[in-house]
């Protein structure tokens, strides 16, 4: 399958072409180039997936083989260790190829309409190509270091795209924040990789077991550090703060990067290292489940009170990624029939979530496009003006809430089953969060399409349905969301590679459906109508909680305090002062000392020749005396 190299090379070439020659092209031409390249990439990805799953099928041992059609040494480290670049195909990377290329293509098409007339249209498409290339490189990585390389590249493309409107202060601040927070997490990732490389003797994903066994406690440490990197990218608490701010970027970018693909890189990383986690660090894996569950809960609570629709979606993304991490974390063995179900559930949810979350964001983009605001207060009652957006948005909301037969139901059900199998506490907690999810998603839905309409604003500027380039991707994604639940996912991806059928556990399904329905019902009661007395009185009753949640429990402020007060004021400024005054002051003091000594000596050189003469004669006299008497 050598042609898979095209998946990496084509978007990269497209980036270079658009980056270098973009300004000389007409915007539409640049967009067409980017989209055409991406269409080819998508075709190749589908071809790869087809050939991988159906063309060659399973090997003799009943597993899908791991193929590496390309692998080349990029940077040798020493005689045994080297950083390779290549392409590795296995079930999850092929699945990711499909997800990324699909969402990316949709976003490319959608952006034609959404970004029309924007300054820097060509640059936008160049960055999208760069992002696609690096994300593809990340998922097909043959080794952990290649993953890290592309990990950084997706980070920078995210930085560039969040800061796309670089004249806006908020966008610049958000892009900086996103980069630095993830960079900080990547430090953990890097150190984890370095430990791993040293003790495992390789960067590849399947090291010698003896080496790992000999390393003892270091491997759990390394894996834990790697998870820190993953937590940064995947916005796990407390490294989540960059994601809500990242919504400053153009909405299609949020859909692509900050909902469907890049933010699940952390989940992908854990899935990629899954055999090692299970084999050598099950405790670390379970700890990630705790982190995931807490993040999921925290984000769900915050999402309930946000008024900016993109922020609601951002927190919902954080919460859903928490679900995926939990699903991985509750795995206790690699056997899907006893404790390994979560792996498949997580990947399945990753897949379905990518589709419906991209759909939600793109829908939100249409709405923002129509009302020119992100605030829910500018919306309400939009169902009359934007039927297509409304229908597709509803599909996505039902999917994320987990209503049968939409895709979200199936994947969430698997996750909950895995959680219940791990411990009832985890199961109930996650069920509650699922109910909360349904609640805040429908709060959002009613707030936008029903509820209290902002008539004055709409009278001034009547909202209108988005153009076809924007609605087409919505329809496609909605169709996928409707159908994706019926994919026999367990046949393609499972924790140890063997195929198995997904069973719907009737008890769990009933519980989760009840929770979802309850959430939706509550939201309907509170937000569907013009008057929202219940919601307002609740907000008044729990004013402190409401304000705290609205301000995201002040986590950002704490960070602000740490970075500005502690790092800048208490470290950098004193260091700079120390440098200028102590270190440099010492050097200057040496110079001044030398100078002072010269001034002292200079006094002897009075310039009056008689003085010199006396010195001379005195010297001559002394010498004479010495010569005459002392010897």
């Amino acid at each position, binding site marked *: 399958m050598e042609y898979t190299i095209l998946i990496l090379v084509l978007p990269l070439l497209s980036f270079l072409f658009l980056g270098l020659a973009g300004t000389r092209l007409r915007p539409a031409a640049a967009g067409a180039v980017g989209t055409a390249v991406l269409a080819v990439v998508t075709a190749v990805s589908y071809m790869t997936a087809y050939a991988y799953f159906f063309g060659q099928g399973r090997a003799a041992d009943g597993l899908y083989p791991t193929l590496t059609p390309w692998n080349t040494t990029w940077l040798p480290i020493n005689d045994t260790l080297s950083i390779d670049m290549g392409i590795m195909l296995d079930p999850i990377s092929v699945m990711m190829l499909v997800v990324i290329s699909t969402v990316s293509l949709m976003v490319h098409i959608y952006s034609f309409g959404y970004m029309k007339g924007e300054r820097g249209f060509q640059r936008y498409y160049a960055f999208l190509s760069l992002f696609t290339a690096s994300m593809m490189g990340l998922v097909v990585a043959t080794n952990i270091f290649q993953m890290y390389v592309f990990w950084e590249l997706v980070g920078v493309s995210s930085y560039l795209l969040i800061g796309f409107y670089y004249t806006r202060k908020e966008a610049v601040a958000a892009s900086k924040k996103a980069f630095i927070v993830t960079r900080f997490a990547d430090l953990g990732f890097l150190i984890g990789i370095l430990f791993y490389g040293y003790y495992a003797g390789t960067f590849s994903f399947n090291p010698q077991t003896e080496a790992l066994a000999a390393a003892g406690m270091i491997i759990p440490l390394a894996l834990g550090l790697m998870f820190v990197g993953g937590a940064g990218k995947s916005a796990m608490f407390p490294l989540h703060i960059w994601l809500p701010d990242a919504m400053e970027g153009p909405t299609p970018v949020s859909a692509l990067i900050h909902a469907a693909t890049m933010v699940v890189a952390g989940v992908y990383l854990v899935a990629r290292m899954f055999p090692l986690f299970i084999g050598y660090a099950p405790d670390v894996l379970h700890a990630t489940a705790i982190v995931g569950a807490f993040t999921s809960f925290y984000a769900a609570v915050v999402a309930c009170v946000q008024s900016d629709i993109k922020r609601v979606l951002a927190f919902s993304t954080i919460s859903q990624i928490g679900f995926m991490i939990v699903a991985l974390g509750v795995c206790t063995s690699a056997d899907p029939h006893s404790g390994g179900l979560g792996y498949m559930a997580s990947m399945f949810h990753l897949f379905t979530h990518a589709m419906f979350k991209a759909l939600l964001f793109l829908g939100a983009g249409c709405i923002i496009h129509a009302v020119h605001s992100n605030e829910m207060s500018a919306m309400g009652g939009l169902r009359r003006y934007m039927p297509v957006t409304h229908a597709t948005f509803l599909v996505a909301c039902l999917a994320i809430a987990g209503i049968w037969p939409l895709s979200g139901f199936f994947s969430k059900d698997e996750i909950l089953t895995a959680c219940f199998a791990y411990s009832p506490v985890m199961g109930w907690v996650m069920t509650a969060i699922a109910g909360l999810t349904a609640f805040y998603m429908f709060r959002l839905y009613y707030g936008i399409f029903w509820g209290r309409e902002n008539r004055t604003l709409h009278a001034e500027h009547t909202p209108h349905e988005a153009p076809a380039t924007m609605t087409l991707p919505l329809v496609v994604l909605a169709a996928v969301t409707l159908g994706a639940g019926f994919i026999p996912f367990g046949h393609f991806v499972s924790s140890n590679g063997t195929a198995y059928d997904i069973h719907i556990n009737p008890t769990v399904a009933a519980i989760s459906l009840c929770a979802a329905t309850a959430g939706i019902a509550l939201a309907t009661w509170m937000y569907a109508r013009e008057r929202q007395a219940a919601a307002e009185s609740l907000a008044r009753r729990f004013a402190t909680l409401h304000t705290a949640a609205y301000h995201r429990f002040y986590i950002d402020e704490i960070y602000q305090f740490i970075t500005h007060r502690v790092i800048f004021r208490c470290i950098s400024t004193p260091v700079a002062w120390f440098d200028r005054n102590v270190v440099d002051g010492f050097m200057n003091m040496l110079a001044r000392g030398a100078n002072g000594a010269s001034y002292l000596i200079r006094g002897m*050189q*009075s*310039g*009056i*020749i*008689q003085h010199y*003469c*006396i010195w001379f*004669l005195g010297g001559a006299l002394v010498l004479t005396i010495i010569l005459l008497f002392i010897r």
Partner: protein
Amino acid sequence: MIHMEYYLIVSTIMMFAGIYGFVTRRNLLAMLISVELILNSVDINFVVFNRFLFPEHLEGFFFTLFAIGISAAETAVAIAIIINIYRNIRNIKVKSLHEMKW
């Protein structure tokens, strides 16, 4: 016959008178004159030593003639400098010459 010591006493007196003058005088011309005194005392010594110790040689006499020639030239140069200084600062006191210090 006058003994050599008398010549030497004269030249020593001249020598120290010159040094005294050179150290104490603040006027450039006076200093120049003092330098001439020192030179001449040395010239006397050359001649006297040559005459009394090595009568068959002439180096001392030649050297003295040479030194006289040199001192004449040196005086000419020195006076030229002094005149230039005078033109510049209207003064030939050593103390006024700070320009060339350091």
